[in-house]
């Protein structure tokens, strides 16, 4: 208990100071610019009790999960295939790096004009945002395998299955999980981007609507909630990554 207090007291103190500063800043500026923390909470409670918030949240969650799971279903097996088949990996590597470094937001206008406003184009946006980190990091992991290891395994006539279990997976999975962590963050950005720039739905619509009505309290309430979701998902990603990092040599 004592160590818990000692370790976490500074964090809580810093959060409370921040909230107090927010409250003071909000009270001393115009309401169009900033609203105090207390008013943000009141507005958030209104949004929740009116049921608006829950519906939009579920809408966003559905989009996030569909796009992200698709990215995993495509990215993970493809990444492992590239890890195993050297010629494929060498061939695709540079293009993967280019796609990983390209700002995918730039493709949104094309997706809009080709696919319109439905659910599918938004899923595609989330998918494109999150699939390349998984692929890129898995390939990076495959590159970290020393060719000697595979040669030794082969000269001892190890089967394909034990080659995977003893060499391929321990080397590539930790990298892939780094990719999964990055993909979680990018999928969240993709989700909001899709909701902003394709058709306005979900949490993105909540915040855009509030901004168009000059409802500053609504804007702050939405940012607060999305921020907390972001922090929660980032933590989850770090947990997943650390869990597999133990395998890393």
């Amino acid at each position, binding site marked *: 208990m004592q160590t818990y207090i000692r370790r976490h007291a500074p964090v809580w103190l*810093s959060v409370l100071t*921040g909230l107090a500063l927010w409250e003071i800043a909000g009270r001393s500026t115009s309401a169009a610019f900033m609203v105090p923390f207390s008013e943000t909470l009141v507005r958030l409670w209104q949004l929740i009790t009116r049921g608006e918030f829950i519906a939009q949240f579920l809408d966003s969650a559905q989009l996030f999960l569909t796009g992200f799971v698709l990215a995993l279903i495509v990215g993970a097996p493809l990444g492992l295939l590239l890890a195993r088949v050297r010629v494929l990996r060498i061939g695709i590597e540079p293009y993967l*790096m280019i796609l990983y470094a*390209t700002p995918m937001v730039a493709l949104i206008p*094309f997706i809009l004009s080709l696919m319109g406003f439905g659910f599918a184009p938004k899923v595609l946006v989330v998918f494109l945002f999150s699939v390349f980190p998984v692929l890129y990091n898995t390939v990076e992991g495959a590159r970290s395998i020393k060719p000697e290891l595979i040669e030794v395994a082969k000269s001892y006539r190890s089967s394909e299955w034990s080659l995977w279990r003893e060499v391929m997976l321990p080397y590539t999975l930790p990298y892939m999980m780094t990719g999964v962590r990055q993909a979680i963050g990018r999928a969240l950005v993709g989700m*909001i981007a899709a909701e*902003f720039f394709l058709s306005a739905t979900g949490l993105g619509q909540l915040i855009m609507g509030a901004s168009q009505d000059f409802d500053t309290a609504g804007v702050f309430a939405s940012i607060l909630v*999305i921020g907390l979701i972001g922090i929660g998902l980032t933590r989850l990603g770090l947990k997943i990554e650390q869990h597999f990092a133990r395998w890393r040599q």
Partner: protein
Amino acid sequence: MAETTIGSAAIPDTPARHVALMAGNFMPRFLTGLAILLGWEILVRAIAPAYVAKPTTVVLAIPRVITDPAFLQALGATLAAVAEGLAITIVAGTAIGLLMGRSNAVDRMIRVYINGFNALPMIIVLPLFSLWFGYSGAARIATIIFAAIFAITMNVADGARAVPREYLEVSRSFRSGRLRMLTDIVLPASMPYLLAGFRLAAGRALIGAVVAEFFLSIGGLGYYILYNSRSYHHNEAFVGVLLLAAFGVGFEVLVQWMTRRFLPWYRRDEKAG
């Protein structure tokens, strides 16, 4: 080709071997690139309307686009904003990061916020920034800074904490002041972390600029892409995307080159996040 047996440790690491390896890599890469372009061309010709971008028409659009004054103006506006935003980000982010890394009090005070803001999907601040700064270039700069600064701060803070204790002890026994210690020892020792942070920050700054232009409808490369794709000039718009991709890759290459050129003492296997 026959005398290079790839992967055996007995072969010395000579330039000739590198050339041979590169030649071995070239063919699969070239063929993959060709397959991608060909597949794209055929797919678009088979099922998509004529205005959709495909390799042959995009290539034909390149000379037209890069001599178009409207395009050059848009490009200049975006690059100037990214450069300005990144300059502010590097100075402010490094200063905050150094303080966090070397002072436990500062670290405890603001780490929770740096981590929190870093986890925020950056584009959600756009509606707020448009309320604060209006639909203007200032909102774009603010978005770029917000998108990029936390990556730099977190990396520099980690780097400042990882400075070997002996360096600091030596400087202390030579009675150097706290500020000199920060600028002459902690900052240079954190350079690899700063560069790793810059790599992340530059990519995010680019995304921030494009997203801000979409949202705020202010002139720049992002808006050029949006406007042209809306008016069915997909080929022209795609040249803009190619340029963005080139900048994204260019930043990666620049950082890798700088690490090798200026920080040869830094070994990559102990790299930062």
